[in-house]
């Protein structure tokens, strides 16, 4: 069994695309840059409310600077939990040696997430730590904290400026992680003004050098409300490596319920 703990955070990746939706500018000229930044973050989170649940497939292509590629493939199920973090279930299909391995996450707003890993070769359900923050997923360019749910309170914000971007006109906001275990000193986020979708994120390391850039695209809207990026590319400027994450087969409001996200259910996963 080749499966490392740092693979797990990647699985929460879906949660970072739960960014803004809905009409109109959300800031006013009279507010301070900090107030404006916070307001944008709050509004983009509020627009995710009510999605219920969804399922999707993810394919990840890891490329090194020589262009060699390695693939990961998995299935994702997410259940919205009102007043708390979402529940998610991730099942690996590729690479073959981790096929059938599954991860169950009960995210929490106030406390640490609960995570259980199912190892099919041993038929073992293992409770695992969720405190890995800055680690990489299986050599990919995504770190744990790039992938965990981005609760509003996890950052402080500062509105910087407005400029043209892939989604028309974007607000550019800087956010600083509250968690000292974060690998970043700050992040700069580009969101379009109309739908509050994220188009680009720049990550700066603890020495404040520009470490990575995430670009998002192929947005599609579901249930006339919820936007999902179909492609997310993370480039590492230090190593020249990149990872492309592709999302397909989104289905919203399926017949999933709480019982699909229990330890009993985890043992049944295929």
């Amino acid at each position: 069994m080749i499966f490392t703990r740092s693979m797990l955070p990647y699985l929460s990746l879906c949660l970072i695309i739960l960014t803004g939706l809905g009409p109109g500018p959300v800031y006013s000229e009279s507010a301070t840059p900090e107030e404006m930044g916070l307001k944008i973050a709050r509004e983009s989170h509020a627009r995710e409310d009510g999605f219920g649940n969804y399922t999707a497939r993810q394919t990840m292509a890891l490329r090194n600077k020589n262009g060699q590629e390695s693939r990961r493939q998995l299935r994702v199920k997410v259940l919205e939990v009102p007043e708390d973090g979402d529940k998610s279930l991730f099942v690996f299909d590729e690479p073959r040696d981790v096929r059938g391995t599954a991860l169950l996450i009960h995210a929490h707003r106030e406390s640490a997430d609960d995570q259980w890993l199912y190892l099919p070769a041993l038929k073992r359900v293992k409770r695992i730590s969720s405190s890995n923050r800055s680690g990489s997923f299986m050599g990919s360019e995504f770190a744990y904290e790039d992938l965990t749910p981005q609760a509003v309170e996890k950052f402080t914000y500062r509105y910087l400026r407005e400029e043209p971007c892939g989604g028309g006109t974007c607000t550019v906001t800087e956010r600083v992680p509250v968690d000292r275990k974060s690998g970043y000193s700050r992040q700069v986020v580009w969101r379009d003004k109309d739908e509050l979708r994220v188009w680009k994120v720049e990550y700066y390391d603890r020495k404040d050098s520009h470490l990575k850039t995430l670009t998002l695209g192929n947005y599609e809207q579901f249930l006339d409300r919820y936007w999902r990026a179909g492609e997310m590319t993370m480039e590492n400027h230090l190593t020249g490596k990149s990872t492309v994450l592709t999302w397909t087969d989104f289905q919203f409001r399926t017949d999933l319920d709480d019982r699909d996200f229990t330890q009993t259910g985890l043992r049944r996963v295929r």
Partner: protein
Amino acid sequence: MIRRSVLRYALSGAIWILSTVSGFVAGAGSKIDHQISGSFSIESQWFPESAAYPDQRGHATGFVMEPEIYLDSIEGWSFILAPFLRYDSADLHRTHADLREAYLLLFGDVGNDEWELRLGIDRVFWGVAESRHLVNIVNQIDLVEHPYKELKLGQPMAHLTWSGDWGMAELFGLTYHRPRTFPGRSGRLRLPLVVDNDQVSYESAAKQWHMDLAARYSHSFGLFDIGISAFDGTSREPFLFPGTDFTGAPILAPHYEQIRQVGLDTQMTAGSWLFKLEAIQRLDARDRLGRKVDYTASVFGGEYTFYSVLGSTVDISLLGEWNYDGRGHNATNVFQKDLFLAARFALNDVQSTEILASVLGDADNSSRILAFELNRRLSDQWSLNLEAIAFLDIDPADISYEIRRDSFIDLNLIYNF
């Protein structure tokens, strides 16, 4: 070599399979999906030290086939068939076949609760510790697979699970007993005498058909995961009586008695720390001298992980577990008073390279068991497993003295499909 016990086991499994699956498949009528997956691996094992007993090999090669067939019906039932076959060039007893899994799975909801029923041959894992799996009693150990990893044989059973907000309750009816596998005459990692599984005896008049019962309640709340378990039935651990085989040569004959066991396993997951405890009380067991004894045993310890060490992608976990067995030096395993220390290195590279180095040391003497294991993915299909185990300074009083010359290096090349 196909042993009689294996044939009986196959028969007992076949009863379950035929009586459950045939009915469902026949009645299904609708679309049934299937998936085939599994692995094939080639193994080479070296024993650098000369053997302690005559006829023991110094090197062996072999292969393992573990296909898995999965059937899934739109009506909500599924069926899993997972046969296992190992060929070992040196040891006829290590060459063996098993049905790891062959069960029908049904599940559903009642109110806010859910239920699940598994009928057939399955494997069950209980527990939290890494150095040993103390509470994990449902399945028999497939000892020829590995000297201490406690890999398991398939077990015929009816397994009912009921779960809700209040936790998970499980009941097991275990309908057939599997004798533990032991290395043959040319095999390493064995006692001076060979265990003869053609001379298995039981305390129960029902012999291997005695219905063993097991139950478990488990729940997660906050930082804690707990499990409480009970078992009443045929021991998975045999007592070995000296005897002779049909040629008159001395052998050991395994005898399985009726025991009862209660177990507790719990883990606290706090930040980068995992704290673990497993404890059992076993009644009507035996000690190493063959005396009837009730005893307690436990393993407790923890694991701490340093993530992204020195700004790299590497995670390092340090593990420590204390093993205790109330039978002291008359315990029937190496864990009577032993400290397990280990370091796990997860490189988090594209190949998911992982290294585990450990030492199990006896608190009362110089005996040490060192282990090193490397796992690495070679491609989407291929992966590599390298393992080295060294028995150092094994004390003559230690139970592993018999295998003191059996340090080994084991290389596996695995194809996953």
